[in-house]
């Protein structure tokens, strides 16, 4: 069996979540990977260095078309003939293109898998992680997205795969790429950060939410938020941790003023150590927290910073 993994990359580096997808793919068979985009050549070199990758398919494109689902899905459907499985990390770009490719191939996709039982059988969360379903696919080909926090990332160095160049097979078909605006941040990416500091409705407003910055700086942490904080407009949606946002599993997750709605817990309960600060002792977040402090976060936050400054 040979498996194709569609990779996400940024600045010539393969995203950590995609390296987790490679680990998942290696459980199924030989691994080829696909990189697309303006800097596909740099990303292809990085991908070729990942141990376990046999072949890198490089699709250079400077038109922005490879940011669109239509040509990428057509490309995946074209390449599908040589593969039993097509995988990708559960990223926005994969969620955009893979189901479309699945439709072209008459396949029911299997999103967000957390375990592989055999070549046809996979475990995936449903109902925002309130249940785990084991499903068996009757399709000849499987189209799968992988929840990165459930698989260790493949190493970035040590391999030497061959690189093959392919062109985008189709035009954008009625879609026109206009622009991408990426928010610039010095902080680590939420999904790969070792520490995440998250704020909820308890942060009260946009101004107060910025009080999390110094704590995050001290810990080298990414900043996250609950859906309530996002809905209230404290921070943009890309901060959202939860079923409808990012799924994270850092070494340390610090939840400040987050009550712990089911949908939020689904996005962070696989973190190694969870800390919660909340003024409500009955808040559900305490049911999953390893360490909890009941109290006013605006009092505790500066104390926490001061303690971290003390030599450890």
């Amino acid at each position, binding site marked *: 069996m040979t498996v194709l993994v569609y990779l*996400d990359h*940024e600045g010539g580096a393969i995203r950590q979540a995609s390296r987790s997808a490679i680990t998942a793919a290696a459980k199924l068979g030989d691994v080829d990977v696909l990189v697309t985009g303006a800097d596909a050549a740099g990303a292809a070199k990085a991908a070729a260095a990942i141990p376990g990758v046999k072949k890198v398919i490089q699709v250079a494109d400077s038109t922005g078309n490879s940011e669109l*689902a*239509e040509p990428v*899905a057509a490309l995946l459907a074209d390449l599908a003939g040589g593969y039993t499985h097509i995988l990708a990390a559960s990223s*926005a770009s994969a*969620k*955009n293109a*893979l*189901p*479309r490719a*699945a*439709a072209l191939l008459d*396949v*029911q*996709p299997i999103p967000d898998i957390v375990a592989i039982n055999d070549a046809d*059988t996979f475990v995936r969360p*449903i*109902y*925002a992680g*309130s*249940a*785990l*379903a*084991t*499903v*068996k*696919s*009757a*399709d000849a080909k499987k189209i799968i997205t992988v929840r990165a926090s459930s698989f260790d990332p493949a190493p970035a160095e040590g391999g030497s795969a061959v690189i093959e160049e392919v062109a985008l097979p189709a035009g954008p078909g*009625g*879609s*026109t*790429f*206009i*622009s*991408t*605006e*990426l928010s610039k941040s010095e902080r680590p990416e939420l999904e790969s950060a070792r520490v995440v500091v998250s704020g909820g409705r308890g942060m009260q407003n946009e101004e107060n939410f910025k009080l999390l910055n110094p704590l995050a700086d001290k*810990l080298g942490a990414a900043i996250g938020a609950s859906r309530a904080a*996002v*809905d209230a407009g404290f921070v943009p*949606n*890309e901060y959202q941790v939860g079923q409808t946002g990012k799924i994270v599993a850092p070494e*340390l997750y610090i939840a400040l003023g987050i009550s712990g709605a089911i949908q939020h817990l689904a996005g962070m*309960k696989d973190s190694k*150590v*969870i*800390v919660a600060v909340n003024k409500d002792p009955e808040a559900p977040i*305490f*049911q*999953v*927290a*390893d*360490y*909890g*402090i009941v109290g006013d976060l605006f009092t505790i936050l500066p*104390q*926490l910073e001061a*303690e971290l400054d003390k030599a450890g």
Partner: protein
Amino acid sequence: MKVLVPVKRVIDYNIKPRVKADGSGVETAGVKMSINPFDEIAVEEAVRLKEKGVATEIVAVSIGEAKAQDTLRTAMAMGADRSILVETDVVTEPLAVAKVLKALVEKEKPDLIILGKQAIDDDMNATGQMLAGLLDRPQATFASKVDVADGAVTVTREIDGGLQTIKLALPAIITTDLRLNEPRYASLPNIMKARKKPMEKITPADLGVDMTPRLSVISVAEPPERKAGIKLDSASELVSRLRNEAKVI
């Protein structure tokens, strides 16, 4: 301009789902059901397009058991003009649903199809993309802003690390993200009016679609429970525990 809005009946998002004792699925009997929240946002967007004079007719569609007509009534109370119930007791997988919708699109010829990005029961996040693929029409998933003008729609999409803007020729498929809008509550007079709005009832067989699922559910289980830890009294104790006990800082 005609807008088609597919809606799904799911367990209300405020209810914690319970896994059935025999591990065959999640208990839905006697549980409060509601319109899927992302579909509610889709209905709201369609209604706003109609209020702006861009859309002229909104058709809501639901594929599922007979009780899905409650969900269609909700959509009509919010402002959909009429609805179609495609009745089936089979588990509705995105591929089969996309095939039903494709058949309806060919019949109804809408200019825009707005769907929720995902249903909060199976969390598939696939139907809109699959419908677009089957129809060979442009798609814009995870929309946070939608502007229709001159036979095209410009959509701002939520992507990892930021936003992307794309323009689609109509007819096109859009899936909604959370922040596209805040859905209205249906007023009592509108709920009453919705009871009189037309609802067509058909079956997948009428559309020539085979609903047989491709995925068989082997089992459904509770996720491993995480145990509650300990409550601490001070920031200093917390930092000390994180350093010396958990060793994560």
